[in-house]
């Protein structure tokens, strides 16, 4: 029973992280319907900047955190400006292949700079953040990840609902031509959505790094696990991303705990195939009806 509850807690916290990683992915998909295959590399980028700031530059944790988030934000802008803007108006297939290429570039760069080793952050979380409750121990990282996940969910929800930029983004997602003709600055919307997505990705990369340690290969494979999450939640639903993340996270920890640890990393993809069979638009995705 205790084992079960411990797995449950772990699953929920990991799930929140997957959900957060997926939120960034959904942001990009919503505004430009691009599947971003470089998302895992953005996660790893955030984690590594934070690592460099904390260990090499020796900055205090808060400053390092702010700097890495800013770095990710700028990175998102730069990616959009350099690589995606020349492709506005080109077929989508080119843009998606471009993100595959970008993923390879970033992975290669990070491997060149930091190598393929496993790094760990120095221990900086206050131990009184952990929760002890009847024999179940929730480590501080998990508490933190859940809090951050909820915070970002609320922030992004408010952003899309009330801020003018958020409303522009939704309008571009809904109908790009109509948004253009109403005077929405579509290019700025794309840039902003990439920047915010990179920021959210970097954030979840840092928290994932605290939990599992930082390794280029591990973090970039999390970026691919985003796909089962978003397909389950619905490709264009931010709340669905969190729910999907929770389900996939729970599934993974329970498979790892009860069935076999090696099956753990494959289960999300098996689920993915079944969702595509049964309910391809996911739990909360928009059902597209098209008559020819």
């Amino acid at each position, binding site marked *: 029973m205790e084992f079960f509850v411990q797995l449950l807690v772990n699953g929920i916290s990991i799930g929140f992280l997957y959900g957060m990683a997926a939120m960034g992915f959904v942001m990009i998909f919503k505004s430009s319907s691009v599947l971003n295959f470089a998302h895992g590399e953005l996660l790893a980028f955030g984690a590594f900047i934070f690592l460099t700031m904390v260990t090499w530059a020796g900055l205090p944790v808060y400053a390092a955190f702010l700097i890495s988030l800013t770095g990710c934000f700028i990175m998102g802008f730069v990616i959009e400006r350099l690589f995606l803007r020349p492709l506005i108006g080109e077929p989508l297939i080119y843009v998606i292949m471009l993100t595959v290429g970008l993923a390879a570039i970033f992975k290669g760069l990070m491997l060149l700079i930091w190598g393929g080793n496993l790094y760990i952050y120095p221990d900086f979380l206050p131990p009184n953040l952990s929760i002890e409750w009847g024999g179940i121990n929730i480590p501080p990282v998990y508490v933190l990840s859940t809090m951050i996940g909820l915070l970002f969910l609320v922030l992004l929800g408010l952003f899309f609902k009330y801020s003018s930029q958020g409303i522009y983004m939704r309008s571009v997602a809904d109908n790009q031509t109509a948004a253009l003709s109403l005077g929405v600055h579509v290019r700025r919307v794309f840039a902003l959505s990439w920047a915010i997505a990179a920021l959210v990705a970097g954030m979840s990369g840092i928290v994932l790094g605290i939990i599992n340690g930082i390794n280029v290969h591990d973090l970039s494979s999390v970026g691919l696990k985003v796909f089962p999450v978003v397909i389950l939640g619905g490709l264009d639903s931010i709340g669905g991303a969190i729910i999907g993340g929770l389900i996939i996270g729970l599934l993974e920890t329970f498979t790892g705990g009860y069935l076999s640890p090696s099956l753990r990393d494959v289960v999300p993809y098996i689920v993915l195939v079944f969702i595509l069979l049964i309910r*391809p638009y996911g739990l909360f995705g928009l059902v597209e009806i098209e008559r020819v």
Partner: protein
Amino acid sequence: MKLQLHPCGNFKERYEDELTIFETDYGRLWLAIGLSMLFGAVPFASGPYLLYVLNIIAITSIAAIGLNILIGFTGQISLGHGAFFGVGAYAAAILATQVHFPFLLALPAAGLITAMVGMVFGIPSGRLKGLYLTIATLAGQFIIEYVLIHWDSLTQGTRGIVLPPVSIFGMEIIDERGFFYVTFASLVLMTLIAVNIVRTRYGRAFIAIRDNDRAAEGMGIPIFQYKLLSFGISSFYAGFAGALWAYYMTSITAEPFTLGLSVEYIAMVIIGGMGSVAGSIYGAVFITGLNETLRWLTDIFMNIDALQGAGLTIAPLRELVFGFAIVFFIIFEPRGLAEVWRIIRSSFRLWPFSY
């Protein structure tokens, strides 16, 4: 019969003219010369290393042609081509060792098995518009990798399988030169099939789906079946190439068939030129050449004393160069080397009055 060498303009009077492979006899002539050089002179003029590289080029070209039928002609992306290549390799190995299939039968059988495995992942996504196939094949990549490693009784897990030597009609093929004939004969055959598939109603339906799937559906093309067919053909090519590769390497493990390999094939198709069968071969030549150059370069760097401790490895460099090649071609020449070659050719033809 009079040979027609130079057309005096680019005009077409019948639909058949649009479908011809060679517009002039000039092309046919060059192809005949090229093929006879390839089979008559190249294997005797080149050493074992060059023959090895050429064999690898021929095998990867076959797989790249398959992927190009899917990406370039049907407009669907597969991220599982590396895994399907692996399925072909394993299918051939298992058929050869456990069922004792002869070489000539094992190749197409491996292709068919791979096509069927591909369909399993293609069916759920084919029903949907958009790029769901990409996501499904990504899942396929990971599931296949897992199965290849963990289905111990069939694939022998991490120990791998050793294949029997190739024999065609009692003739044993052991050296690189013998394999050269096998791989390049297969390449010529598969290229011929691909070029002709593209010209048939199937190929034209694929192109229609790529260009506008709603219009294609409106004209009565059953999109689901054609997408699935295209995916099946592409998987068949991957499986065929994988089987050849397995025989060539004589022993296989699950290690090489990763997502990285799939990305490598995508890079070949983009760099070579989407929607061009010849382009896939250019892409395969480019990427294989790049791989060999990088290996050579890292060997040199490793031997420089100052860099000995730097722990330089080939993997990140390869990723980096592939990534840059993909991005560079998409932004600056999305139609790839095939288009570059066409421009060069026509500028020669039109010189000095280039318009």
